[in-house]
């Protein structure tokens, strides 16, 4: 308990959910008698991100972390739940012209694929300059050039590079251009969707270092999506583990890595091949991530969990606070593990 009142978090997500209708076309459904198919990509996710901090979301395929990223930047509208940005309802603001423009300036995104995230037919100056022109931050050509040059320098590229095309750059350099573009409007909040997954290890190190430096310089808040827990350990302050659209554990970085609570988190940490554990033999957990279209009942992890009981099969666990971390697990709640 601290005597100093904590400032309100910049981003607050409450019970966010997104369901996609992936049913076969209407005619097929009628003729073949197939039912509607709903994909619950995100099923009730809540978290807070304080200003200047980094929340990392990790999970395997189908866990919904990319969908959460897109919900947070307004590319999708939530099926249920709400998002507060700087104290205001974000999705309501997106629907107003003024709110939309403000939020688009303050929230930006960096993507995974450095080869698809830059328009191959545009030169770098136009790519990085587009947000500046769109939001009226620059009014003439000279200003544009100056701003773009400064942005490129801040990510370690040369201002002359603005005349080149994306295919003339390597993957790591392209990712830096993406970062420069994202920073053009001086945003407060940056959503990073697996920004280094497609990069080589040595290039990844460069990009991660730049991202950390920029965060310190500009007081940025990050939501960092990744499946690589080692990278997450390096960049995050808080970590959320997702499984089939739900948060199973949400904890400070050191808590999570030194003392993981949820069985899935433990399994995940154990499954990662570690460089300095040479030749270690271990028994990995059995099974695979179930089909998200047909998730198990109750706690979706119960088929693979060594601690599952009857309650786990029937009842979905809520994300509860437990010794400073949040865990969604009946076994933890009941003190069984």
């Amino acid at each position, binding site marked *: 308990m601290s005597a100093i009142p904590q400032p309100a978090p910049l981003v607050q997500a409450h019970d966010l959910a997104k369901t996609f209708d992936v049913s076969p076309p209407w005619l097929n459904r009628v003729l073949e008698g197939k039912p509607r198919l709903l994909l619950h990509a995100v099923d009730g996710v809540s978290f807070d991100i304080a200003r200047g901090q980094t929340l990392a979301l990790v999970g395997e395929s189908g866990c919904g972390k990319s969908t959460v990223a897109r919900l947070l930047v307004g590319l999708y509208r939530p099926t249920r739940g709400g998002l507060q940005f700087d104290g205001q309802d974000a999705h309501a603001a997106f629907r107003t012209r003024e709110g939309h423009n403000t939020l688009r300036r303050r929230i930006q995104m960096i993507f995974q694929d450095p080869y698809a995230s830059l328009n191959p037919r545009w030169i770098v100056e136009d790519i990085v300059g587009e947000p500046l022109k769109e939001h009226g931050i620059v009014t003439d050509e000279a200003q544009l050039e100056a701003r773009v040059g400064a942005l490129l320098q801040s990510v370690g590229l040369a201002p002359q590079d603005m005349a080149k095309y994306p295919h003339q750059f390597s993957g790591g350099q392209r990712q830096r251009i993406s970062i420069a573009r994202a920073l053009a409007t001086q945003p407060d909040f940056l959503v990073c969707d697996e920004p280094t997954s497609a990069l080589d290890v040595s290039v990844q190190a460069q990009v991660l270092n730049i991202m950390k430096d920029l965060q310190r310089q500009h007081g940025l808040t990050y939501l960092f999506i990744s499946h690589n827990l080692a990278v997450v350990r390096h960049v995050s302050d808080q970590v959320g583990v997702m499984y089939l659209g739900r948060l199973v554990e949400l904890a400070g970085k050191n808590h999570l890595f030194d003392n993981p609570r949820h069985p899935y988190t433990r399994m995940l940490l154990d499954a*990662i091949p570690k460089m*300095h554990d040479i030749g270690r033999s271990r028994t990995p957990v059995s099974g695979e991530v179930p089909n998200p279209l047909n998730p198990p009942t109750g706690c979706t992890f119960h088929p693979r969990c060594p601690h599952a009981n009857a309650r786990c099969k029937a009842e979905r666990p809520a994300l509860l606070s437990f010794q400073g971390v949040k865990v969604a697990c009946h076994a933890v709640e009941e003190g069984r593990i």
Partner: protein
Amino acid sequence: MSLLQVQNLIVEFPGRRGTLRALDDISFEIAPGEILGVVGESGAGKSLTGAAIIGLLEPPGRISSGQVLLEGARIDNLPYEQMRRIRGRKIGAIFQDPLTSLNPLYTVGRQLVETILTHLPVTPQEARRRAIGLLEDTGIPAAPQRIDHFPHQFSGGMRQRVVIALALAAEPRLIVADEPTTALDVSIQAQIIQLLKRVCRDRGAAVMLITHDMGVIAETCDRVAVMYAGRIAESGPVHEVINQPAHPYSMGLMAAIPDITQDRERLHQIDGSMPRLDAIPPGCAYNPRCPRAFARCVAERPDLMDAGATRAACWLHDAHAGAHA
């Protein structure tokens, strides 16, 4: 005697802007039953090495010099028919994407049986029995029923197990695995790595494991070769290369990998990037980025030389000249 010997292999791609040398004088050996890891970043040439060994280089790429010897006999200069017979019988292959490695139109059983019958002198019934045995051994539940399923009826991890079974079907001596776990989830990765180790040990097959993931190498391999710009920078026992790398590139690489067991404020980074094939610097390919480069590094290209417990292509370890700091 080594199972596989690669000697001074050079692979080139003639193109309209000149000939690009993608692999420049690669030499290494794999002993029977050993697991060798080939690690490197994109563009280093590790996949090309695998392709050259199996004989699946895409034209216009070609082996312009050097030899590949399997059990003492040359295989790089064989005519297509003979190489086809060796592929599958003596060398098995596993690729990255399990979805495209299997023919979607045929059942898994048919593909397995076809491979077995092509290379081994057994009856069709015996082949089917062996196929079921292979599926069981690679951990596919209800193998006698699932053998007649199609690839799309298996999940990603299961499909990769089928691919491993297929690679082992003709009882090869060597398996070339190119990024076999990269497309899989972390938890499945662990299962597949364990499986690969076990079945290869059980059958005495050697493995050439090509990947960019050092963690996978650490867990699986006996020895590792680190590639850079089409050359081998360092090779040696896995434990030594990871903990006591001798080549500055290996040192930089190990330091740049984020460690899940400890907090670090900044990741060590290697400035610059791997040179493109048409712009490889003279002398040692790593010299522009190397913090310890000196005059000889630019002038002469180093070959692999003894560097303590490993072998590194670096003049810092030249025993005949005094080492420069």
